[in-house]
């Protein structure tokens, strides 16, 4: 009896909205992990797309019970446009709102929190129950279990902590009309995206990352690229490598860059500062190659090899 009542109460307390990101028909993989996290809170899950080209794809994400799509595309996901729309949809109707911890999610979620007068939770890595979540603090050196006292739970989801949701039969799609939008918006001017044939760093199952030990952009390209290609891995880098111009900013792994949790992570010429470890220590297998036997990276590496990168990496690339 009591059980039944509790069950029905908790059921009615869950009604989640998830913003699914993507463009040109392609869903951002981080959003699939976000739906997986929402499913752990419970159903129903309503997916919102503000780019109608991904509505059909969103309907086929396992766990999604309904898709809301906007009539127009909110190009570039400007937070001044999207946050008021979300406020209008959520207010009084949803108990939970989840978004991925991508650069888009991080820009939109807090603004929405301010509009709803709710304190959001950033980068959750575990769902305990509908109100209680785990999130890393201090660059991943501590895990905080936090309980929200707000009526609505707003959270961003760390994609590397949840697997992507699978496919299902398509859920129904409904169009929503939005009245709310801020007239005080930033405007998009231009963008410059790094094109790469390598898998996307955030969702890759294998990552080959280089650090200061590679000494120059030329050695970075000559050693890291072929190994990554051979393994079909994404390329990553430490802050030192990025700051020295060995590769693009967007490849930085760490507290202030991407957080990854691939099956296999190669740290080549990376010492293993705590800010870097924050971005990769949840990888399943970590391999460290470094000439300094005392480098802290060896404390987290499953397999370590001490020696000269310029000899080891080409040999490895050839023999794998």
């Amino acid at each position, binding site marked *: 009896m009591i059980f039944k009542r509790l069950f029905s109460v908790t059921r009615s307390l869950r009604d989640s909205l998830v913003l699914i990101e993507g463009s040109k028909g392609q869903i951002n993989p981080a959003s699939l992990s976000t739906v997986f996290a929402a499913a752990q809170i419970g159903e129903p899950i309503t997916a919102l797309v503000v780019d109608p080209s991904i509505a059909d794809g969103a309907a086929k994400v396992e766990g999604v019970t309904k898709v809301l799509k906007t009539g127009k595309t909110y190009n*570039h996901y400007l937070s*001044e446009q999207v*946050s008021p729309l979300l406020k209008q949809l959520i207010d009084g109707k949803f108990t939970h709102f989840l978004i991925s911890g991508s*650069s*888009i999610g*991080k*820009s*939109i*979620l*807090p*603004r*929405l*929190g*301010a*509009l709803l007068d*709710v*304190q959001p939770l*950033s980068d959750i890595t575990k769902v305990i129950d509908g109100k209680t979540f785990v999130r*890393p*603090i*201090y660059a*991943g*050196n*501590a*895990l*905080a279990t*936090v309980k*929200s*006292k707000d009526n609505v739970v707003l959270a961003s989801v760390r994609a590397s902590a949840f697997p992507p949701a699978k496919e299902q039969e398509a859920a129904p799609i409904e169009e929503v009309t939005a009245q709310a939008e*801020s007239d005080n*918006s*930033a*405007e998009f*001017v231009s*963008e*410059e995206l790094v094109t790469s044939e390598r898998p996307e760093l*955030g969702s890759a199952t294998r990552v080959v990352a280089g650090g200061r030990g590679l000494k120059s952009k030329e050695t970075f390209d000559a050693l890291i690229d072929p190994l990554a290609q051979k393994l079909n891995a994404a390329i990553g880098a430490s802050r030192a490598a*990025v*700051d020295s111009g060995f590769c*693009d*900013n*967007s490849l930085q792994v760490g*507290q*202030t860059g*991407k957080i990854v949790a691939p099956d*296999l992570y190669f740290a080549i010429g990376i010492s293993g500062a705590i*800010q870097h470890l924050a971005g990769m*220590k949840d990888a399943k297998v970590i391999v460290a190659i470094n000439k300094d*036997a005392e480098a802290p990276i*060896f404390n*987290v590496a*499953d*397999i*370590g*090899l*001490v020696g000269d990168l310029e000899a080891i990496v080409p*040999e*490895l690339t050839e*023999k*794998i």
Partner: protein
Amino acid sequence: MSNKLKILVPLKRVIDYAIKPRINKTNTGVETKGVKFSINPFCDIALEESIRLKEKTPELVENIHAVSIGPTKAQDILRTALAKGADTSTLIDVGEETVEPLQVAKLLKKVVEDKKSNLVVLGKQAIDDDSNQTGQMLAGLLNWPQATNASKVEVKGDEVFVTREIDGGADVLKAKLPMVVTVDLRLNEPRYASLPNIMKAKKKPLEKLKLKDLGLDSIDNRLEVVKVEEPPARQAGVKVESVDQLIEKLKELKAL
């Protein structure tokens, strides 16, 4: 009427970035006794950018006001900010209490209104709670445009052009003042305060406020910290001697 920039730079006092924090015995937070504290590195970059803007185009900037919300000791980081080049400062002394980003944003909104700021430059996140929320929230409360994760900021007339670091590359946004900008790591290299400037900073204004001065009794935090734990430790790995052994080991672990 003057259209000059009145920049507000919020600064947070955090455990120094080079220190590995330790969980306290009661599992309620991290140990703070006897630990070195500094300006949050991203806040330092926000301050540096504001100072450079003023140095490069003094005719554009009327004032740089630094503000910190935290314990009495947070006045140390405000003195540092004044020594680096901030003109004036405010400490909102909340004692040892934790203040969540939403409440920080609400307090900052009051300061913005009081100081008539038209550009707020913040760090993109604090390295203690890693929330990455306050700037966006302040922009939302004020209904101002926002540009997050700035790697370049240019003021042209009444418009601000911001290059942002986004997943997969960079983009450029522009907005009319007033606006909120949060800064990323690569925007600049913060300076050190020189000794003469540290001496001069002692004479610069540092206004001290308590919550009740702002018409508040207490901080309305919304999150309850149930516990704080160490992340699970990784099992010790092995060191191998050669590439062949490395490959063999990878196969053993089914990683290849």
